[in-house]
């Protein structure tokens, strides 16, 4: 196990601590401070993955989140994580990872055969080839996806926990490179509350791999010093391993902090990741820049890397990823890599510079070392299969658009390339700021700020270190001042940097080949998705012009790296093919997330039982103990039915329904919405909201009402009781409670503020037990002695104060079953006690607890509607055959009244509520069934309406349904048909919607 590429200089790693890890089944050794990428490179591992489409072998290209090739599956079992980048995984003892692509393995990949026929798979290949026959697409897709790989999701539940934190700060600094560090220090010194977040394991950004001197000492010493200054400021929160991945409205930003990922298999406690939801007064973006690779033929062979990445592996990790380097560049900056490589004691074969006579300071330094510089030349092609063997070099014309001389081959195993730098404008772009193309720096710059933010340093296109530090410090001081701290003047003197003078770069993206792009070996733009320069040109030939369309057609930038390396090159090649400028071509819009984010962190603790609040009634435990099945009604858990023994739901419901009509049943109705309404204008207000009048409702009386929206359609219904003068209790549907309260407040606050009326939700304050059935009075009488329960003195639609089972109670004679009913309301704290006393009292009558299902059947037998089931927001009271509930002589034009006269509301042939009785008494219509007159007609059939409620009624002895049918009230006795998807048809007769006790005598006794 030799780390053949490990250098004696160790950079920021600790070679005394070795770490064993497994990659694709083989055991290797790395050192503390390594990433998986640096450890693989140290061990000379060339192939880390296969490309998505052609399955070409791929090696590590970058050193950070821009890495397109080293995509791995980490670990196994429930905690396995797909699609991580080797450059971002910190090495830990026992780490196990495998490539996501490649079958049977990355070194011998059967799918790679496709790569040999790459020309057969142009952009849009899948669309073009697998389009017909359409029904086979699902089959094709299955195999394509399998072939494509890209990670496996774990099949077990995630064992880790995640956290969310809401935070506020005055200044949020994104990125802890040189500009970000000084920005945070300046803002911190002003006293502002600062958060600085950086995605790497330590602060310092580019300086962690820099040879530059700051204030006469090494860059890493300066980083240490500024870090300790930041640490000493208690108002500065430092977040490492924390990616700011989204910038949303009103300066709301999200940060994913990876807390324990780097600890690997060590026993760790606490959440794995934490999402910070930050509301920042001011933001400083210091997100740096990515180096842009040059695009040339076969630039995807392992051993072609980013120049800055090669330097980073040498300087930060003590790893030289090869022996013999050819450096391809169009700028001075990349010459640092040649110097670093030379300093590492390895062979710099040549520098290939596209510019005709480069002579910057760095160039001269390299020349002084006797290193050969091919000026006016380009690396036009890499040779090799699983590792670079040589670079083909040729002279280019001065524009860099044509090969103008003989090609020569340079033997090498590493080609480092640099095409300049692209500012990381993603977060600025999230805010809606439109990026601006800057010819001078050959990069996009952030557009005009749309929010309280400013960019500083490389992400603003300021690539020099001293300029970046100045910008950072200024931005930090200014941001603090705008947030109300300090005077906006930079407090600390800026460090001195010995800056070399660089000559301008050449604008070059695609290095020409001796053959035209369409015939040259593939020149890859997007490594992960195998998008080549020829593919982009082909898209243009096929008529695509918009960058957004070309992106989707070619899949440019669609990978897990979101095109961080390839996008700008792709746009430049597109612009060239369209014969227009890059600024005219524009860029695609960057949207959150900046990097892939785990769902776990987004969900945090809001999972399983905590996903949504659950509301329980006071007697809930009793229901559980009785073995009730539960139904979710909004957030409420309501008993659905109470099975006994091995009863099915159907058997239980039949038994419960029969018990209510023949003796007595009991229902937990606590979930009904209850709004307490008080004030001198309460009656007037309620009357404006309901269709009927409450002006003359006396204390002790109840009235059923229907509420409309202003368009005349039924919105809610329920009983309203007059508790005392100017004091009412409004019952709403269980699901409608919050909406009704907001509705009442809307009208009182915005339209009639002169009405003195106040609303309080008291739903949870009361527990309600509904005792219903012919024996209800006998049961209640056993536990209530201070209310005269006689029909004469406590009639239907009355309510009384009294004592039930020793508890102060409001008892309402309202009925949703059509039977003699008492709704007993007590303070919720006594709910279970009273419930149990009623059960005890009812024992001799075989009192039967029933749930929502029986409640539905019983009310349907009576034709009582449920708002939201039998109505759907397009039903008037007349449609529900409930004209009787609309007050015709009300002085005030109540909400919705005018709409009842609209031409459409009075139209003939509106759908109307009717009953349906199936011709076969035992077939139950599926709810939602469409109703037609003639089931033999051709499709599409003429629809007459639909079934809204349908049950088997044990009391009636046959199946019943409620339905809305066009002109249904005039069609009594007609036979209609409900065709089902399986071709069967159920025939039914239109009947009255009231099946049971049509005269309503039973509730009135």
């Amino acid at each position, binding site marked *: 196990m030799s780390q053949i590429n490990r250098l004696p200089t160790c950079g920021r790693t600790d070679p005394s601590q070795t770490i064993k890890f497994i990659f694709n089944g083989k055991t290797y050794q790395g050192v503390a401070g390594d990433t998986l990428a640096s450890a693989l490179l140290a061990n000379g591992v060339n192939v880390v993955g296969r490309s998505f489409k052609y399955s070409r072998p791929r090696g590590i290209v970058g050193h950070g989140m821009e890495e397109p090739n080293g995509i791995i599956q980490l670990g196994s079992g429930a905690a396995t994580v797909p699609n991580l980048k080797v450059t971002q995984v910190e090495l830990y003892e026992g780490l196990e990872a495998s490539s996501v692509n490649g079958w049977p393995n990355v070194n011998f990949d059967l799918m790679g055969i496709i790569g040999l026929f790459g020309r057969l798979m142009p952009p849009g290949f899948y669309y073009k080839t697998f389009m017909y026959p359409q029904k086979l697409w699902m089959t094709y897709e299955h195999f394509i996806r399998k072939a494509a790989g890209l990670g496996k999701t774990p099949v077990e539940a995630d064992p880790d926990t995640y956290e969310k934190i809401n935070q506020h700060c005055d200044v949020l600094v994104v990125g802890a490179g040189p500009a970000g560090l000084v920005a945070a220090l300046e803002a911190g010194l002003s006293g502002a509350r600062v958060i600085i977040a950086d995605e790497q394991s330590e602060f310092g950004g580019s300086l962690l791999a820099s040879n530059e001197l700051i204030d006469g000492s090494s860059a890493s010493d300066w980083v240490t010093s500024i870090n300790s200054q930041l640490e000493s400021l208690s108002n500065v929160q430092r977040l490492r391993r924390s990616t700011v991945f989204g910038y949303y409205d*009103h300066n*709301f930003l999200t940060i994913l902090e990876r807390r324990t990922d780097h600890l690997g298999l060590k026993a760790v406690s606490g959440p794995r990741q934490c999402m910070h939801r930050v509301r920042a007064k001011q933001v400083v973006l210091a997100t740096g820049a990515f180096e842009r690779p040059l695009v040339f033929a076969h630039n995807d062979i392992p051993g072609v890397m980013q120049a800055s990445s090669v330097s980073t592996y040498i300087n930060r990790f003590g790893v030289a990823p090869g022996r013999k380097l050819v450096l391809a560049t169009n700028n001075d900056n990349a010459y640092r890599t040649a110097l670093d490589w030379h300093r590492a004691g390895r062979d710099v074969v040549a520098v290939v510079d596209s510019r005709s006579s480069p002579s910057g300071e760095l160039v001269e330094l390299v020349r002084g070392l006797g290193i050969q510089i091919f000026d006016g030349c380009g690396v036009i092609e890499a040779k090799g299969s699983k590792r670079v063997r040589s670079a083909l070099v040729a002279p280019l014309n001065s524009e860099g658009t044509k090969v103008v001389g003989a090609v020569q081959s340079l033997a090498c195993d590493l080609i480092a390339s640099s095409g300049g730098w692209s500012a990381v404008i993603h977060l600025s772009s999230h805010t809606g700021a439109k990026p601006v193309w800057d010819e001078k720096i050959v990069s996009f710059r952030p557009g005009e700020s749309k929010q309280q933010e400013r960019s500083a340093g490389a992400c603003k296109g300021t690539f020099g270190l001293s300029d970046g530090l100045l910008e950072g410090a200024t931005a930090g001081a200014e941001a603090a001042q705008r947030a109300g701290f300090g005077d906006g003047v930079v407090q600390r003197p800026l460090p001195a940097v010995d800056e070399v003078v660089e000559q301008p770069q050449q604008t070059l993206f695609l290095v020409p080949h001796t053959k035209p792009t369409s015939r040259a070996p593939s020149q890859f733009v997007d490594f992960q998705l195998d998008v080549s320069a020829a593919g982009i040109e082909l898209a243009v030939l096929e008529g695509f012009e918009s960058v957004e369309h070309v992106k989707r057609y070619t899949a440019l930038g669609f990978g897990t790296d979101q095109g961080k390396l390839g996008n700008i090159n792709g746009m430049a090649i597109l612009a060239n093919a369209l014969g227009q400028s890059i600024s005219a071509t524009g860029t695609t819009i960057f949207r959150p997330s900046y990097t892939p984010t785990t769902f776990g962190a987004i969900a945090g603790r809001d999972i399983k039982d905590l996903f949504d609040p659950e509301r329980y009634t006071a007697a809930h435990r009793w229901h559980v103990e009785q073995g009730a099945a539960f139904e979710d009604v909004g957030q409420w858990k309501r008993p659905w039915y109470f099975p006994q023994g091995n009863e099915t739901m159907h058997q239980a419901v039949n038994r419960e329904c029969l018990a209510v009509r023949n003796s007595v049943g009991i229902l937990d109705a606590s979930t009904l919405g209850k709004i307490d309404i008080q004030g001198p204008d309460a009656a007037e207000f309620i009357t404006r909201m309901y269709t009927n009048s409450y002006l003359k409702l006396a204390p002790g009386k109840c009235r059923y009402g229907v509420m409309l929206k202003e368009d005349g359609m039924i919105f809610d219904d329920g009983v309203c009781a007059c508790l005392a003068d100017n004091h009412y209790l409004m019952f709403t549907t269980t699901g409608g409670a919050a909406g009704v309260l907001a509705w009442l407040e809307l009208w009182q606050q915005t339209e009639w503020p002169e009405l003195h009326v106040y609303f309080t939700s008291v739903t949870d304050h009361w527990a309600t037990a509904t005792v219903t059935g012919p024996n209800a009075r006998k049961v209640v009488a056993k536990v209530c002695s201070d209310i005269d329960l006689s029909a004469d003195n406590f009639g239907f639609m009355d309510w009384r104060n009294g004592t039930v089972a020793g508890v102060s109670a409001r008892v309402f004679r309202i009925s949703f079953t059509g039977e003699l009913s008492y709704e007993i309301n007590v303070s919720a704290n006594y709910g279970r006690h009273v419930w149990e006393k009623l059960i005890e009292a009812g024992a001799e009558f075989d009192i039967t607890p029933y749930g929502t299902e029986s409640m539905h059947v019983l009310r349907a037998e009576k034709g009582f509607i449920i708002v939201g089931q039998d109505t759907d927001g397009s039903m008037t009271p007349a449609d529900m055959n409930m004209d009787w509930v609309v007050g015709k002589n009300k002085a005030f034009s109540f909400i919705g*009244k*005018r709409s009842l006269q609209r031409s459409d509301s009075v139209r003939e042939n509106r759908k109307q509520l009717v009953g349906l009785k199936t011709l076969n008494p035992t077939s139950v219509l599926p709810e939602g069934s469409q109703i037609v007159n003639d089931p033999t007609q051709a499709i599409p059939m003429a629809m007459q309406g639909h079934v809204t409620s349908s049950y088997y009624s044990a009391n009636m002895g046959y199946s019943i349904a409620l339905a809305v049918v066009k002109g249904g009230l005039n069609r009594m006795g007609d036979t209609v048909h409900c065709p089902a998807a399986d071709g069967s048809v159920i025939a039914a007769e239109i009947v009255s919607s009231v099946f049971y006790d049509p005269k309503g005598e039973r509730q009135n006794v």
Partner: protein
Amino acid sequence: MLLIYCPHCLEHREEEEFSYGGEAHIARPLAPESLTDEEWGDYLFFRKNPRGIHHEMWYHGVGCRRYFNATRNTLTYEILETYVVGTQPQITGADA
């Protein structure tokens, strides 16, 4: 995620506490019965949909439970002011 200043609570609160209430400053006709179907339909259904300044109602349902008005730029989502029901906006768009 908007940050909204509630003119009743007198502080900025997160959007999660509020719900949107539609266009503001629509007065309910005092005599609905005297309107034609078309006039009533205008009141019921027709709303502005400006690109830019919009005056709208918000409901602080998970807070003080009060409605108020906001002037919002529909393009940038900036909330330029909030003000209590019954008062007029200070900021108005070109078409207001």
